[in-house]
């Protein structure tokens, strides 16, 4: 798993490449939490994530809880269909606005 974080128009864009599971989710959480010091709007680029386990879903929800306390937003862009299905069935999807592309997401939460 690789993770890169950049800021676009005051929005933190987190791009993840690979799988988010019990081994990698804590790392993502650590890196994103550090970025949260500076921002309250986060867009996850998920277009290169083909698998996300329950630890990944929990990581996203805990970022959401951290940010929503500061009036922030967490959005997801480019979700794989299968991940979207899993998130829907397990109730996680309801917390996140989703967008087809990063650009679309940036425009919406700007």
């Amino acid at each position, binding site marked *: 798993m690789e993770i890169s974080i950049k800021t676009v128009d005051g929005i933190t864009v987190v791009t993840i490449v690979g799988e988010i*599971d*019990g*081994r990698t989710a804590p790392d993502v959480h650590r890196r994103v939490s550090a970025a949260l010091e500076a921002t309250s709007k986060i867009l996850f680029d998920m277009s290169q994530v083909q*698998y996300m*386990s*329950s*630890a990944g*879903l*929990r990581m996203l*929800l805990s970022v959401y809880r951290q940010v929503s306390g500061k009036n922030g937003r967490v959005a997801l862009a480019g979700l794989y269909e299968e991940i979207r*299905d*899993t998130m*829907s*069935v*397990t*109730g*996680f999807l309801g917390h996140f606005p989703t967008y087809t592309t990063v650009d679309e997401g940036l425009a919406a939460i700007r």
Partner: protein
Amino acid sequence: MERIDTYPTHLRGGFKLRPGRPYPFGATLVPGGINFSVFSRHADYCVLVLFEKGKTEPMVEIPFRGMFQRAESGDPVWGDFRIGNVFAMVVFDLDYEDIEYGFRMHGPYPRVERGRPGIHRFDPSQVLMDPYAKAIGGREMWAEEPDWNKRYQHRARVLHDDFDWESDRPLEIPMEDLIIYEMHVRGFTQHPSARVRKPGTFAAIREKIPYLKELGVNCVELMPIFEFDEFENRRVNPETGKMLLNYWGYSSVGFFAPKTGYAATGKSRDGTMVADELKTLVKELHRSGIEVILDVVFNHTAEGNEDGPTISYRGIDNATYYMLTEDGYYQNFSGTGNTLNCNNPIVRSTVLDCLRYWAAEYHIDGFRFDLAAILGRDPRGVPLANPPLLEALAFDPVLGKCKLIAEAWDAGGLYQVGSFPAYGRWAEWNGQWRDTVRKFLRGDFGQVGKAAQRLEGSPDLYGERGPTASVNFVTCHDGFTLADLVSYNEKHNEANAEDNKDGTNDNTSWNCGWEGATDDPSINRLRRRQMKNAFAMLLVSQGTPMILMGDEVGRTQCGNNNAYCHDDELTWLDWTLLETNQELFRFVKNCIAFRNGHPVLRSNLHFRNEDYLGTGYADITWHGTRAWQADWSEGNRVLAFMLCGRHARSGTAVDDYIYIAMNMHSEALPFEIPRLPAGKRWHVFANTSRVPPDDVSDPGAEPPLGDEAEFVVGGRSVAILVGRDRRTTPT
């Protein structure tokens, strides 16, 4: 501040360990690791067996006692990770999503061979599932052939219990306001006509919530969802070549884990999302005002008798978990091979832990206990006057607002309908309601007096407990569907491949003139009317009505009254029936809305049969074809009653007057109708002898009755009138 117990103290085989905590039992995520805790009174040595998910061979085996290394120095050190009869150990740095675990237990010898009786059945060669497993692998996909070469078939998994419930909690709908819909999780949506994304799953039920809301029920009772093995006793029907499975699931493998094969997420790489999926369903049902009751099976397990498989309990502590004869044979009060030793103090607390877990972690609203009479037997099988388990459940703080519903009989001949130890809490499946109403509906003689008792909440059975002790039903999963009740005189269970010997012969059914499906329009009309009659009586009766999945659209099982082994169109709900039998659906839907709109139909206290408010009318009055003159004689098949709306809920609610006339004669009869107070007049809500749309009205839009003195009720028909102010009559 960081806890000091987040660091390992011992090492073994490269794994970091520390002595664990005995409570809670099972596998619990703790900072840095997982706490494994398992109880056995009779085992003297235990080994934790860890697998990578799905693997045949273990990743490591760690004994709870023996030589370890000190974590800080690597020096050898003796360790015994046990307190009392509980083995407990923390293993650090495990990826909980990716492991399965089990135990090997050593205890008194000699080893008992399969098929032989024995008090203890310790067999260290067998890996055993944790009785407290919160998730169980091995049957990830429904009916997908497992790898039978794996000796460890039902594999304990670890869960994160941190679901985000937001503000959800159990709904606490009063029993008298509840309308239960009994459903099979897979059967509800597996039929292609259901048109859902994930057929046969928890997730698919969520897609069908709008249907449940339209019907108007406010509670679903899920047939068993504890992990079970659909392959248990699987066999092929020699005549048809069809595979027969354990489709119903009244045979628990694990009491703490939802059935993985019922989850859309069950087959995902990370099998721990099953719990999140079920919790999401519960949360969404609650959001729609619908409660969830679980049908729970604590009377026996899937391990069967001496010939059955060793999955968990018998290998962990046979003498504790099961009722045994002195020779070590399994007692069989359940009719399925073994009997869980429910009034053993340890098993009792396991049952309590289990139900608390479902109430607290899954926000379950109530439980229906399969063959609950067994739960009142002592360890030798003798019925107890004051059964500790039933008392403990009734007084438990966490279960304090949960519905507790007993199937108040067992396969050992104990029949407790009306006498189940209730402690002011327990309700019962009222089998007498079913039997009497079926007889009355069929036109049997001598039923009028009993039918009156059933319709007013069975005060003869539940005099002190009130009508809310009575769960009323015409049909349930066990027996004919309603459509079959009016289409078959005899059961037709040939497809079960047991020579039609299984299933009850006591169906109290009537085929209306032809055995099975027919295109005779007069027979089909009569059957439709009989189904409406049954629903009408169910939904005006005091007590809690329960509807079997699909009866509202006339689902048939082709005369099979014990369809436990069929996973196909025979048992799945065919959603095209919603169009074919739209007439019945509309009738049921409106009767439910009528019940919901009239508190006088939903009392939590019995009627007093007197006018205690000075309204000029007693709370309930009985009539016949002549007003004020009910005919209780043996040869009569006619009954009518009136409820005084001023007495609704013991005078605390204001409602209309309601009059119900039931004519189970084959001929139409004129009924003299009681006069209403000045200013009110009768309106016709339902009349099953009429053709749609006049068979039932939309509640509140009932047309006025023309002749206020006399009303002709057709043969084998039910009429429901509502008496209210003239001015509210729609024009």
